[in-house]
Protein backbone atom coordinates (compact mmCIF):
# COMPACT_ATOMS: atom_id res chain seq x y z
CA UNK A 1 0.00 0.00 0.00
CA UNK A 2 2.87 2.32 0.76
CA UNK A 3 4.32 1.39 -2.60
CA UNK A 4 1.15 2.38 -4.38
CA UNK A 5 1.02 5.99 -3.23
CA UNK A 6 4.50 6.90 -4.26
CA UNK A 7 5.47 10.31 -5.62
CA UNK A 8 2.27 12.26 -5.11
CA UNK A 9 4.34 15.42 -5.03
CA UNK A 10 5.45 14.86 -8.64
CA UNK A 11 1.83 14.83 -9.78
CA UNK A 12 1.00 17.92 -7.74
CA UNK A 13 4.13 19.72 -8.94
CA UNK A 14 3.30 19.02 -12.58
CA UNK A 15 -0.19 20.42 -12.04
CA UNK A 16 1.24 23.46 -10.28
CA UNK A 17 3.56 24.19 -13.19
CA UNK A 18 0.63 23.71 -15.56
CA UNK A 19 -1.40 26.28 -13.61
CA UNK A 20 1.49 28.74 -13.74
CA UNK A 21 1.83 28.28 -17.49
CA UNK A 22 -1.92 28.63 -17.86
CA UNK A 23 -2.09 32.05 -16.22
CA UNK A 24 1.20 33.60 -17.31
CA UNK A 25 0.15 36.61 -19.37
CA UNK A 26 0.66 36.27 -23.11
CA UNK A 27 0.68 39.08 -25.64
CA UNK A 28 -2.71 39.71 -27.18
CA UNK A 29 -2.05 38.06 -30.51
CA UNK A 30 -0.82 34.85 -28.86
CA UNK A 31 -3.81 34.44 -26.57
CA UNK A 32 -5.61 32.09 -28.94
CA UNK A 33 -2.59 29.85 -29.35
CA UNK A 34 -2.16 29.22 -25.64
CA UNK A 35 -1.99 25.45 -25.07
CA UNK A 36 -4.32 24.04 -22.42
CA UNK A 37 -1.60 22.89 -20.04
CA UNK A 38 -3.84 21.72 -17.23
CA UNK A 39 -5.99 19.58 -19.51
CA UNK A 40 -2.88 18.05 -21.09
CA UNK A 41 -1.25 17.21 -17.76
CA UNK A 42 -4.53 15.72 -16.63
CA UNK A 43 -4.82 13.58 -19.77
CA UNK A 44 -1.30 12.29 -19.21
CA UNK A 45 -1.78 11.28 -15.58
CA UNK A 46 -5.22 9.81 -16.19
CA UNK A 47 -3.69 7.73 -18.95
CA UNK A 48 -0.57 6.67 -17.05
CA UNK A 49 -2.00 6.22 -13.55
CA UNK A 50 -5.76 5.76 -13.96
CA UNK A 51 -6.13 4.36 -10.44
CA UNK A 52 -4.68 7.50 -8.89
CA UNK A 53 -5.79 10.40 -11.05
CA UNK A 54 -9.48 9.89 -11.62
CA UNK A 55 -12.59 11.93 -12.13
CA UNK A 56 -12.59 13.31 -8.59
CA UNK A 57 -9.00 14.50 -8.95
CA UNK A 58 -9.87 16.11 -12.30
CA UNK A 59 -12.84 17.84 -10.72
CA UNK A 60 -10.71 19.33 -7.95
CA UNK A 61 -8.07 20.39 -10.49
CA UNK A 62 -10.77 22.13 -12.49
CA UNK A 63 -12.04 23.90 -9.39
CA UNK A 64 -8.56 25.33 -8.75
CA UNK A 65 -8.48 26.47 -12.38
CA UNK A 66 -11.83 28.22 -11.86
CA UNK A 67 -10.43 30.03 -8.85
CA UNK A 68 -7.35 31.12 -10.75
CA UNK A 69 -9.28 32.23 -13.82
CA UNK A 70 -11.90 33.99 -11.78
CA UNK A 71 -14.57 32.14 -13.72
CA UNK A 72 -17.75 30.55 -12.40
CA UNK A 73 -16.93 27.86 -9.84
CA UNK A 74 -17.47 24.41 -11.30
CA UNK A 75 -17.10 25.45 -14.93
CA UNK A 76 -13.63 24.09 -15.61
CA UNK A 77 -14.32 21.36 -13.07
CA UNK A 78 -17.16 20.00 -15.18
CA UNK A 79 -15.16 20.16 -18.40
CA UNK A 80 -12.09 18.49 -16.88
CA UNK A 81 -14.19 15.77 -15.24
CA UNK A 82 -15.61 14.87 -18.64
CA UNK A 83 -12.14 14.94 -20.20
CA UNK A 84 -10.90 12.64 -17.44
CA UNK A 85 -13.84 10.30 -18.00
CA UNK A 86 -13.10 9.98 -21.72
CA UNK A 87 -9.39 9.51 -21.09
CA UNK A 88 -10.03 6.88 -18.43
CA UNK A 89 -12.31 4.88 -20.67
CA UNK A 90 -9.74 5.05 -23.48
CA UNK A 91 -6.56 4.77 -21.45
CA UNK A 92 -5.57 1.24 -22.47
CA UNK A 93 -5.93 2.05 -26.14
CA UNK A 94 -4.20 5.40 -25.68
CA UNK A 95 -1.12 3.70 -24.26
CA UNK A 96 -0.82 1.62 -27.42
CA UNK A 97 -1.10 4.59 -29.77
CA UNK A 98 1.83 6.19 -31.54
CA UNK A 99 2.60 9.74 -30.52
CA UNK A 100 0.95 11.06 -33.67
CA UNK A 101 -2.26 9.19 -32.88
CA UNK A 102 -2.09 10.39 -29.30
CA UNK A 103 -1.74 13.95 -30.57
CA UNK A 104 -4.90 13.42 -32.59
CA UNK A 105 -6.77 12.31 -29.49
CA UNK A 106 -5.37 15.25 -27.52
CA UNK A 107 -6.53 17.57 -30.28
CA UNK A 108 -10.06 16.21 -29.98
CA UNK A 109 -10.08 16.20 -26.17
CA UNK A 110 -8.64 19.69 -25.73
CA UNK A 111 -10.94 20.95 -28.46
CA UNK A 112 -13.88 19.48 -26.60
CA UNK A 113 -12.63 21.07 -23.39
CA UNK A 114 -12.35 24.47 -25.04
CA UNK A 115 -15.76 24.18 -26.65
CA UNK A 116 -17.41 23.13 -23.38
CA UNK A 117 -15.87 25.92 -21.33
CA UNK A 118 -16.71 28.42 -24.07
CA UNK A 119 -20.35 27.34 -24.21
CA UNK A 120 -20.69 27.34 -20.45
CA UNK A 121 -19.15 30.80 -20.22
CA UNK A 122 -21.62 32.08 -22.79
CA UNK A 123 -24.49 30.42 -20.95
CA UNK A 124 -23.30 31.95 -17.67
CA UNK A 125 -22.88 35.33 -19.39
CA UNK A 126 -19.22 35.46 -18.51
CA UNK A 127 -18.21 35.83 -22.15
CA UNK A 128 -19.86 36.64 -25.45
CA UNK A 129 -19.90 34.47 -28.53
CA UNK A 130 -17.03 35.47 -30.78
CA UNK A 131 -15.23 33.67 -33.56
CA UNK A 132 -13.89 30.14 -33.22
CA UNK A 133 -10.23 31.18 -33.24
CA UNK A 134 -9.88 30.06 -29.65
CA UNK A 135 -9.91 26.47 -30.93
CA UNK A 136 -6.36 27.10 -32.15
CA UNK A 137 -5.40 26.33 -28.55
CA UNK A 138 -6.29 22.69 -29.24
CA UNK A 139 -3.99 22.68 -32.23
CA UNK A 140 -1.05 24.05 -30.28
CA UNK A 141 -1.76 21.58 -27.47
CA UNK A 142 -1.68 18.68 -29.92
CA UNK A 143 1.54 20.05 -31.37
CA UNK A 144 3.24 20.20 -27.97
CA UNK A 145 1.87 16.89 -26.73
CA UNK A 146 4.68 14.52 -27.95
CA UNK A 147 7.35 16.54 -26.09
CA UNK A 148 5.22 16.92 -23.04
CA UNK A 149 4.46 13.21 -23.04
CA UNK A 150 8.15 12.34 -23.12
CA UNK A 151 8.93 14.87 -20.39
CA UNK A 152 6.20 13.66 -18.06
CA UNK A 153 7.09 10.01 -18.71
CA UNK A 154 10.70 10.74 -17.79
CA UNK A 155 9.52 12.41 -14.62
CA UNK A 156 7.20 9.53 -13.78
CA UNK A 157 9.90 6.92 -14.30
CA UNK A 158 12.70 8.94 -12.73
CA UNK A 159 10.80 9.64 -9.54
CA UNK A 160 9.08 6.26 -9.51
CA UNK A 161 5.56 7.58 -9.41
CA UNK A 162 3.17 4.65 -9.21
Amino acid at each position, binding site marked *: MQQRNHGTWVILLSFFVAYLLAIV*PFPDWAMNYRPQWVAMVLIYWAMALPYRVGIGFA*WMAGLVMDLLEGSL*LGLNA*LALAIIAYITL*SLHQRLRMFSSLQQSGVVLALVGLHLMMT*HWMKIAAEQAVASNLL*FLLGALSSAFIWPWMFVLLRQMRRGFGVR
Partner: protein
Amino acid sequence: MSLEYRVAAFVVLSMAVMFADSRFDYLDRVRYSLGFLTAPVYWLADTPARVSNWIDDVFVSHGDLIEENERLREELLFAQRELQLLAGLATENNRLRALQEASASVNGRVLPAEIINVSSTPGTRRVLINRGATDGVLVGQALLDAHGLMGQVVEVLPFTSWVMLITDSRHGTPVQVNRNGERAVARGSRGDVPELELEFVPDTSDIEVGDLLVSSGLGQRFPKDYPVAEVTSVVHDRGQPFAVIKARPLAQMDSTRHVMLLALTGNEADRGDGTAPVWVDTAQNKPAVPIEEQIEELSASPQEEVVNPEPDSVSPDEPLPSEVADILPEEPSNQQE
Protein backbone atom coordinates in the same frame (compact mmCIF):
# COMPACT_ATOMS: atom_id res chain seq x y z
CA MET B 1 -19.53 0.71 -14.97
CA SER B 2 -18.86 2.75 -11.89
CA LEU B 3 -16.99 5.20 -14.10
CA GLU B 4 -20.22 6.33 -15.76
CA TYR B 5 -21.95 6.83 -12.43
CA ARG B 6 -18.98 8.75 -11.06
CA VAL B 7 -18.80 11.10 -14.01
CA ALA B 8 -22.55 11.64 -13.89
CA ALA B 9 -22.31 12.45 -10.18
CA PHE B 10 -19.53 14.97 -10.76
CA VAL B 11 -21.39 16.57 -13.68
CA VAL B 12 -24.43 17.05 -11.45
CA LEU B 13 -22.19 18.37 -8.66
CA SER B 14 -20.53 20.88 -10.99
CA MET B 15 -23.87 22.09 -12.24
CA ALA B 16 -25.08 22.54 -8.68
CA VAL B 17 -21.93 24.48 -7.78
CA MET B 18 -22.23 26.65 -10.90
CA PHE B 19 -25.86 27.35 -10.17
CA ALA B 20 -25.08 28.23 -6.56
CA ASP B 21 -22.19 30.44 -7.60
CA SER B 22 -24.20 32.38 -10.14
CA ARG B 23 -27.42 32.75 -8.13
CA PHE B 24 -26.38 33.05 -4.48
CA ASP B 25 -23.48 34.84 -2.88
CA TYR B 26 -22.33 32.46 -0.17
CA LEU B 27 -19.80 30.91 -2.53
CA ASP B 28 -18.24 34.36 -2.85
CA ARG B 29 -16.95 33.91 0.70
CA VAL B 30 -15.34 30.61 -0.30
CA ARG B 31 -13.85 32.23 -3.36
CA TYR B 32 -12.63 35.12 -1.24
CA SER B 33 -10.94 32.95 1.37
CA LEU B 34 -9.37 30.75 -1.27
CA GLY B 35 -7.96 33.95 -2.71
CA PHE B 36 -5.31 33.71 0.01
CA LEU B 37 -4.08 30.54 -1.72
CA THR B 38 -4.23 31.82 -5.28
CA ALA B 39 -2.37 35.07 -4.62
CA PRO B 40 1.10 33.39 -4.47
CA VAL B 41 0.40 31.64 -7.78
CA TYR B 42 -0.36 34.96 -9.44
CA TRP B 43 2.74 36.40 -7.84
CA LEU B 44 4.85 33.57 -9.28
CA ALA B 45 3.22 33.85 -12.69
CA ASP B 46 4.02 37.55 -12.69
CA THR B 47 7.72 36.89 -12.05
CA PRO B 48 8.81 36.92 -15.72
CA ALA B 49 7.25 40.35 -16.25
CA ARG B 50 8.83 41.67 -13.08
CA VAL B 51 12.23 40.26 -14.01
CA SER B 52 12.06 41.80 -17.47
CA ASN B 53 11.07 45.13 -15.93
CA TRP B 54 13.99 44.83 -13.54
CA ILE B 55 16.35 44.02 -16.39
CA ASP B 56 15.07 47.03 -18.30
CA ASP B 57 15.76 49.14 -15.24
CA VAL B 58 19.20 47.77 -14.48
CA PHE B 59 20.78 47.32 -17.89
CA VAL B 60 20.30 50.80 -19.21
CA SER B 61 23.07 53.11 -20.30
CA HIS B 62 24.03 56.22 -18.40
CA GLY B 63 23.31 58.41 -21.42
CA ASP B 64 19.84 56.96 -21.82
CA LEU B 65 19.12 57.63 -18.18
CA ILE B 66 20.23 61.23 -18.43
CA GLU B 67 18.16 61.69 -21.55
CA GLU B 68 15.11 60.15 -19.95
CA ASN B 69 15.62 62.22 -16.84
CA GLU B 70 15.70 65.39 -18.88
CA ARG B 71 12.59 64.43 -20.76
CA LEU B 72 10.77 63.59 -17.54
CA ARG B 73 11.79 66.90 -15.98
CA GLU B 74 10.41 68.69 -18.99
CA GLU B 75 7.16 66.76 -18.83
CA LEU B 76 6.92 67.41 -15.11
CA LEU B 77 7.34 71.11 -15.72
CA PHE B 78 4.48 71.13 -18.21
CA ALA B 79 2.36 69.00 -15.94
CA GLN B 80 3.06 71.28 -12.98
CA ARG B 81 1.98 74.28 -15.00
CA GLU B 82 -1.27 72.58 -15.97
CA LEU B 83 -1.73 71.55 -12.37
CA GLN B 84 -1.45 75.14 -11.26
CA LEU B 85 -4.13 76.07 -13.73
CA LEU B 86 -6.19 73.09 -12.60
CA ALA B 87 -5.98 74.12 -8.97
CA GLY B 88 -7.27 77.54 -9.89
CA LEU B 89 -10.01 76.11 -12.05
CA ALA B 90 -10.99 73.58 -9.41
CA THR B 91 -11.27 76.30 -6.81
CA GLU B 92 -13.33 78.42 -9.12
CA ASN B 93 -15.51 75.48 -10.11
CA ASN B 94 -16.12 74.47 -6.52
CA ARG B 95 -16.92 78.06 -5.57
CA LEU B 96 -19.44 78.30 -8.40
CA ARG B 97 -20.92 74.99 -7.38
CA ALA B 98 -21.08 76.18 -3.81
CA LEU B 99 -23.00 79.21 -5.01
CA GLN B 100 -25.44 76.89 -6.71
CA GLU B 101 -25.57 74.68 -3.61
CA ALA B 102 -24.34 71.72 -5.61
CA SER B 103 -21.78 69.39 -4.12
CA ALA B 104 -18.12 69.66 -4.99
CA SER B 105 -17.12 67.55 -7.93
CA VAL B 106 -13.37 67.57 -7.96
CA ASN B 107 -11.69 64.78 -6.11
CA GLY B 108 -8.43 63.06 -6.75
CA ARG B 109 -7.97 60.32 -4.22
CA VAL B 110 -6.14 57.51 -5.99
CA LEU B 111 -4.26 54.36 -5.09
CA PRO B 112 -1.39 53.28 -7.34
CA ALA B 113 -1.62 49.68 -8.54
CA GLU B 114 -0.01 47.32 -11.01
CA ILE B 115 -1.55 44.98 -13.54
CA ILE B 116 -0.20 41.54 -12.75
CA ASN B 117 -2.27 39.27 -14.96
CA VAL B 118 -4.60 39.27 -17.93
CA SER B 119 -7.60 37.02 -18.31
CA SER B 120 -6.90 34.33 -20.88
CA THR B 121 -10.53 33.77 -21.76
CA PRO B 122 -11.31 34.80 -25.31
CA GLY B 123 -14.27 37.15 -25.53
CA THR B 124 -13.55 38.86 -22.23
CA ARG B 125 -11.22 41.66 -21.36
CA ARG B 126 -10.32 41.51 -17.72
CA VAL B 127 -7.08 42.21 -15.88
CA LEU B 128 -5.88 41.35 -12.41
CA ILE B 129 -4.35 44.10 -10.27
CA ASN B 130 -2.13 43.71 -7.24
CA ARG B 131 -4.52 45.47 -4.85
CA GLY B 132 -7.21 43.68 -2.93
CA ALA B 133 -9.49 43.86 0.06
CA THR B 134 -6.51 44.39 2.38
CA ASP B 135 -5.83 47.64 0.53
CA GLY B 136 -9.43 48.71 0.82
CA VAL B 137 -10.45 48.00 -2.77
CA LEU B 138 -14.19 47.79 -3.37
CA VAL B 139 -16.31 46.45 -6.18
CA GLY B 140 -17.11 49.26 -8.59
CA GLN B 141 -13.99 51.33 -8.16
CA ALA B 142 -12.70 52.87 -11.35
CA LEU B 143 -9.26 52.08 -12.76
CA LEU B 144 -7.28 54.73 -14.62
CA ASP B 145 -3.95 54.92 -16.29
CA ALA B 146 -2.01 58.04 -17.14
CA HIS B 147 -4.11 58.67 -20.25
CA GLY B 148 -7.67 57.78 -19.38
CA LEU B 149 -10.27 55.51 -17.91
CA MET B 150 -9.48 51.78 -18.08
CA GLY B 151 -12.24 49.89 -16.33
CA GLN B 152 -13.88 49.00 -13.05
CA VAL B 153 -13.30 46.48 -10.29
CA VAL B 154 -15.70 43.55 -10.59
CA GLU B 155 -14.32 41.10 -8.05
CA VAL B 156 -12.22 41.69 -4.96
CA LEU B 157 -9.93 39.02 -3.51
CA PRO B 158 -7.73 39.44 -0.42
CA PHE B 159 -4.62 40.68 -2.20
CA THR B 160 -5.76 41.02 -5.81
CA SER B 161 -8.79 42.25 -7.74
CA TRP B 162 -10.28 41.53 -11.14
CA VAL B 163 -10.98 44.58 -13.25
CA MET B 164 -13.27 44.55 -16.25
CA LEU B 165 -11.89 46.83 -18.94
CA ILE B 166 -14.13 49.29 -20.73
CA THR B 167 -13.34 47.45 -23.98
CA ASP B 168 -15.05 44.29 -22.74
CA SER B 169 -18.13 43.72 -24.87
CA ARG B 170 -20.29 43.35 -21.78
CA HIS B 171 -19.23 46.69 -20.43
CA GLY B 172 -20.99 49.97 -21.15
CA THR B 173 -19.42 53.28 -20.18
CA PRO B 174 -21.62 56.36 -19.92
CA VAL B 175 -19.77 59.04 -21.86
CA GLN B 176 -20.36 62.50 -23.24
CA VAL B 177 -18.67 64.40 -26.01
CA ASN B 178 -16.34 66.92 -24.43
CA ARG B 179 -17.05 69.50 -27.12
CA ASN B 180 -20.82 69.78 -26.79
CA GLY B 181 -21.98 67.49 -24.00
CA GLU B 182 -23.77 65.03 -26.28
CA ARG B 183 -24.36 61.88 -24.21
CA ALA B 184 -24.01 58.24 -25.24
CA VAL B 185 -23.13 54.81 -23.92
CA ALA B 186 -19.81 53.41 -25.13
CA ARG B 187 -19.81 49.64 -25.30
CA GLY B 188 -16.74 47.49 -25.85
CA SER B 189 -16.63 46.08 -29.34
CA ARG B 190 -17.21 42.40 -30.00
CA GLY B 191 -14.35 42.06 -32.43
CA ASP B 192 -10.70 41.36 -31.76
CA VAL B 193 -9.75 45.03 -31.90
CA PRO B 194 -10.01 46.67 -28.48
CA GLU B 195 -12.24 49.62 -29.30
CA LEU B 196 -15.50 51.17 -28.20
CA GLU B 197 -18.80 51.51 -30.04
CA LEU B 198 -21.30 54.23 -29.22
CA GLU B 199 -24.73 52.68 -28.93
CA PHE B 200 -28.07 54.09 -30.04
CA VAL B 201 -26.78 57.43 -31.21
CA PRO B 202 -29.26 59.07 -33.62
CA ASP B 203 -27.99 60.05 -37.05
CA THR B 204 -28.65 63.70 -36.31
CA SER B 205 -26.35 63.91 -33.32
CA ASP B 206 -23.34 66.15 -33.52
CA ILE B 207 -20.40 63.77 -33.10
CA GLU B 208 -17.35 64.06 -35.32
CA VAL B 209 -14.15 62.14 -35.86
CA GLY B 210 -11.55 63.31 -33.37
CA ASP B 211 -14.03 64.23 -30.65
CA LEU B 212 -12.89 63.51 -27.13
CA LEU B 213 -15.27 61.37 -25.11
CA VAL B 214 -15.21 61.90 -21.35
CA SER B 215 -17.07 59.98 -18.68
CA SER B 216 -20.43 61.60 -18.03
CA GLY B 217 -20.82 60.49 -14.44
CA LEU B 218 -24.29 59.13 -15.16
CA GLY B 219 -24.76 55.63 -13.88
CA GLN B 220 -23.04 56.60 -10.64
CA ARG B 221 -20.11 54.30 -11.29
CA PHE B 222 -17.42 56.38 -12.94
CA PRO B 223 -16.55 59.90 -11.81
CA LYS B 224 -17.34 62.71 -14.19
CA ASP B 225 -15.01 64.20 -16.78
CA TYR B 226 -12.28 61.59 -17.00
CA PRO B 227 -11.10 61.11 -20.60
CA VAL B 228 -12.29 57.82 -22.04
CA ALA B 229 -11.80 57.63 -25.79
CA GLU B 230 -11.36 59.47 -29.04
CA VAL B 231 -13.84 59.04 -31.87
CA THR B 232 -12.15 57.33 -34.82
CA SER B 233 -14.98 56.78 -37.28
CA VAL B 234 -18.53 58.01 -37.77
CA VAL B 235 -20.65 56.22 -40.37
CA HIS B 236 -24.16 57.42 -41.21
CA ASP B 237 -25.71 54.38 -42.84
CA ARG B 238 -29.27 54.96 -44.01
CA GLY B 239 -29.98 51.27 -43.80
CA GLN B 240 -29.41 51.32 -40.07
CA PRO B 241 -31.50 53.06 -37.46
CA PHE B 242 -28.55 54.58 -35.62
CA ALA B 243 -25.19 56.03 -36.54
CA VAL B 244 -22.24 53.63 -36.32
CA ILE B 245 -19.61 55.38 -34.23
CA LYS B 246 -16.35 53.84 -33.15
CA ALA B 247 -13.84 55.20 -30.68
CA ARG B 248 -10.34 54.32 -29.60
CA PRO B 249 -9.80 54.15 -25.83
CA LEU B 250 -7.20 56.61 -24.60
CA ALA B 251 -5.91 54.35 -21.85
CA GLN B 252 -3.13 52.09 -23.04
CA MET B 253 -4.94 48.85 -22.34
CA ASP B 254 -2.36 46.34 -23.44
CA SER B 255 0.93 48.08 -22.86
CA THR B 256 0.67 49.79 -19.52
CA ARG B 257 1.47 48.15 -16.24
CA HIS B 258 1.14 51.03 -13.82
CA VAL B 259 -2.41 52.10 -13.13
CA MET B 260 -4.41 53.99 -10.51
CA LEU B 261 -7.49 53.00 -8.57
CA LEU B 262 -9.86 55.86 -7.94
CA ALA B 263 -11.57 56.02 -4.55
CA LEU B 264 -15.31 55.58 -4.60
CA THR B 265 -17.40 58.63 -3.97
CA GLY B 266 -19.80 58.54 -1.03
CA ASN B 267 -22.89 56.55 -1.85
CA GLU B 268 -21.59 54.21 -4.49
CA ALA B 269 -21.51 51.51 -1.91
CA ASP B 270 -20.75 47.87 -2.46
CA ARG B 271 -24.10 46.27 -3.08
CA GLY B 272 -24.28 43.74 -0.29
CA ASP B 273 -21.42 41.71 -1.67
CA GLY B 274 -20.19 41.04 1.83
CA THR B 275 -16.62 41.83 0.82
CA ALA B 276 -15.96 45.14 2.49
CA PRO B 277 -19.02 47.27 3.00
CA VAL B 278 -17.80 48.47 6.40
CA TRP B 279 -15.22 50.62 4.69
CA VAL B 280 -17.87 52.65 2.95
CA ASP B 281 -20.29 52.75 5.86
CA THR B 282 -17.81 54.40 8.19
CA ALA B 283 -17.10 56.96 5.55
CA GLN B 284 -20.74 57.72 5.01
CA ASN B 285 -21.50 58.22 8.67
CA LYS B 286 -18.91 60.87 9.16
CA PRO B 287 -19.90 64.50 8.83
CA ALA B 288 -19.19 66.10 5.51
CA VAL B 289 -16.16 68.30 5.20
CA PRO B 290 -17.05 71.89 4.37
CA ILE B 291 -16.32 72.86 0.81
CA GLU B 292 -13.98 75.66 1.88
CA GLU B 293 -11.64 73.18 3.54
CA GLN B 294 -11.59 71.03 0.46
CA ILE B 295 -10.82 74.03 -1.66
CA GLU B 296 -7.98 75.00 0.63
CA GLU B 297 -6.56 71.50 0.53
CA LEU B 298 -6.85 71.36 -3.19
CA SER B 299 -5.36 74.71 -3.96
CA ALA B 300 -2.61 74.32 -1.38
CA SER B 301 -1.10 71.04 -2.47
CA PRO B 302 -2.83 69.33 -5.34
CA GLN B 303 -0.02 66.89 -5.91
CA GLU B 304 -0.29 65.41 -2.45
CA GLU B 305 -3.68 64.00 -3.19
CA VAL B 306 -2.12 60.68 -4.14
CA VAL B 307 -2.62 58.34 -1.24
CA ASN B 308 0.22 56.21 0.00
CA PRO B 309 -0.06 52.55 -0.90
CA GLU B 310 -0.02 51.45 2.75
CA PRO B 311 -3.33 49.89 3.66
CA ASP B 312 -3.76 52.01 6.79
CA SER B 313 -3.59 55.30 5.05
CA VAL B 314 -6.00 54.24 2.35
CA SER B 315 -9.13 54.16 4.44
CA PRO B 316 -11.01 57.36 3.82
CA ASP B 317 -10.95 59.76 6.71
CA GLU B 318 -13.33 62.05 4.92
CA PRO B 319 -16.19 61.28 2.63
CA LEU B 320 -16.04 62.36 -0.96
CA PRO B 321 -19.40 63.80 -1.76
CA SER B 322 -20.93 62.38 -4.85
CA GLU B 323 -21.97 64.78 -7.47
CA VAL B 324 -25.42 63.51 -8.38
CA ALA B 325 -26.71 62.42 -5.03
CA ASP B 326 -30.36 62.30 -6.00
CA ILE B 327 -29.96 59.57 -8.58
CA LEU B 328 -30.37 56.15 -7.06
CA PRO B 329 -27.38 53.83 -7.29
CA GLU B 330 -28.18 51.49 -10.11
CA GLU B 331 -27.93 47.75 -10.24
CA PRO B 332 -24.68 46.29 -11.55
CA SER B 333 -26.57 44.50 -14.33
CA ASN B 334 -27.40 47.85 -15.93
CA GLN B 335 -23.78 48.73 -16.06
CA GLN B 336 -22.42 45.45 -17.38
CA GLU B 337 -25.03 43.38 -19.11
